[in-house]
């Protein structure tokens, strides 16, 4: 495996090397097809976690024959352990807006929205001002695109793209059945490009540096770099942009406190990697994918408590719509409690693992499908901490 060494990069937050508005000028002169081809060539995959190729998303949306299309920036960052989108919106908002304007130009959208989670409402005044200014610039340039802010109201599941549309439409944020996908039926059933905050900034950067320069970074499956949110038992918590495709081991060497027993990659919905696997796993789409959440645990931590926290989180944040997720989360939570207290025998964990697998295959959306990730990876690696 052509894993990369830990390499700190500075694309996202780089202010000096990139004037977003210059990039915008350049982009608006290009044809939509050129933009889309560049995005495809860059190999950029969505940075929200699911990792769908951004260029293809734009291409499919462009191909839809509908006069009304939308670009939506998903800033409903809610994955426990993730806090990079807030920082990006705070530090380099113009790059996000520019990414949206480029996407809009590529697909033929006249309206864009940024859906920000309620927990970030303290940014409201500043962000609104910045959006207004950007809209004015677009107007001055004669570019027919307009961005509006929308706010969440405290629901993790609204980070799921179709749930986000539902929420924007004034409904309960319950994920839709798929297909159809947003590229065809998104917000108000119109073709919609929905990208994560970070993805849009990379779109801006790719346009500035060129796709080939971008994909020099990273691996074949995981092009470019990525912003990581580092928390937990580390001496250096914070936000770091790293080249994609590094070994968990290198990551732990850099950020661990010397006593790291596990790293949770990808937040509550991600995977728990135990020490014994640090050496043979790569952070990226070929290994453990992540929306950026990297949480380290040292040997003082109870993995039962970690798993219990996650399951409590999912039990509360499940939208409740589909059976496997609504009831499954409760069963997993009560189940490990029962095993821990001795009410159920350790073999019950096998029943629960089997249930988790059903949740992975049969839940309606990514939330329910991913509960099995932490559950199985923690049970498999730290079973002795779970049982009575």
């Amino acid at each position, binding site marked *: 495996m052509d894993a990369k060494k830990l390499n700190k990069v500075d694309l996202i937050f780089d202010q000096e090397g990139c004037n977003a508005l210059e990039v915008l000028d350049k982009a608006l002169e290009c044809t939509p097809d050129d933009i889309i081809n560049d995005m495809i060539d860059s190999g950029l995959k969505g940075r929200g976690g699911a990792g769908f190729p951004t260029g293809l998303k734009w291409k499919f949306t462009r191909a839809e024959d509908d006069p009304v299309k939308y670009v939506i920036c998903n800033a409903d960052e809610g994955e426990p352990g993730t806090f990079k989108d807030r920082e990006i919106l705070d530090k380099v908002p113009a790059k996000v807006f520019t990414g949206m304007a480029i996407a809009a130009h590529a697909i033929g959208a006249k309206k864009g929205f940024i859906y920000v989670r309620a927990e970030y409402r303290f940014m409201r005044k500043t962000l609104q001002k910045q959006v207004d200014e950007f809209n004015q610039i677009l107007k001055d340039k004669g570019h027919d695109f307009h961005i509006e802010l929308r706010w969440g109201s405290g629901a993790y599941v609204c980070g799921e793209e179709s749930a986000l549309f539902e929420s924007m439409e004034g409904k309960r944020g319950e994920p839709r059945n798929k297909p159809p996908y947003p590229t065809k039926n998104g917000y108000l059933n119109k073709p919609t490009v929905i990208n994560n905050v970070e993805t849009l900034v990379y779109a801006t950067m790719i346009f500035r540096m060129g796709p080939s320069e971008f994909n020099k970074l990273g691996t074949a499956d995981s092009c470019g770099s990525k912003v990581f949110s580092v928390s*937990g038992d580390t001496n250096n918590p914070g936000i770091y942009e790293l080249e994609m495709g590094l070994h968990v081991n290198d990551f732990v060497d850099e950020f661990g406190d010397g006593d790291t027993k596990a790293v949770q990659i990808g937040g509550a919905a991600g995977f728990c990697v135990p020490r014994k696997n640090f050496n043979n796993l790569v952070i990226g789409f070929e290994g453990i994918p992540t929306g950026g959440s990297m949480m380290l645990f040292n040997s003082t931590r109870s993995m039962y408590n970690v798993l219990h926290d996650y399951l409590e989180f999912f039990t509360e944040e499940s939208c409740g719509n589909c059976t496997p997720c609504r009831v499954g989360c409760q069963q997993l939570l009560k189940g490990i409690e029962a095993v821990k207290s001795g009410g159920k025998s350790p073999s019950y964990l096998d029943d629960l693992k089997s249930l988790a697998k059903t949740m992975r295959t049969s839940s309606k959306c990514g939330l329910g499908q991913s509960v099995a990730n932490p559950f199985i990876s923690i049970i498999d690696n730290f079973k002795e901490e779970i049982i009575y």
Partner: protein
Amino acid sequence: MTDVKELIQGKIKTFGNNRTALMPILQAIVEDKNHLDEEDMIEVADALDISTADVYGTATFYTFLDTIPRGKYVIRVCKTISCHMAGKDEIFDTLKDVLKIKEGETTPDKKFTLLIANCMGWCHKGPVMLVNDDIYTELTKEKVIDIINEYQEK
């Protein structure tokens, strides 16, 4: 407090007289009076021509759209894993002591409501809490007492 009818009409002007205006309307009412009461939801249903049960069902989906009365300052302490690891229990206990209320309760003077919430996106600076829209990070017992004192005087 603004008249709810006026507030609704203002939002409808901005967002259109259709259901996409629902979230901004509910958010504005909650911002104004910290919760949605029965009459508010009836007004909203009437303005947007949707059922009251739909308004209620939508509001109760969202943690921040409270349908029971809250204090002037709603405190939400993050309980998710990294804040948990960083000591949210002590922070929460301190708040309970200082405010003399339990989780989900409001002080008799209607000033503070104490809630527990899920991840707020400050995992590198836990423990954290929100007081209405404002975030407070890297909390300690002393810091929390100071913050509450400040709000007491507001």
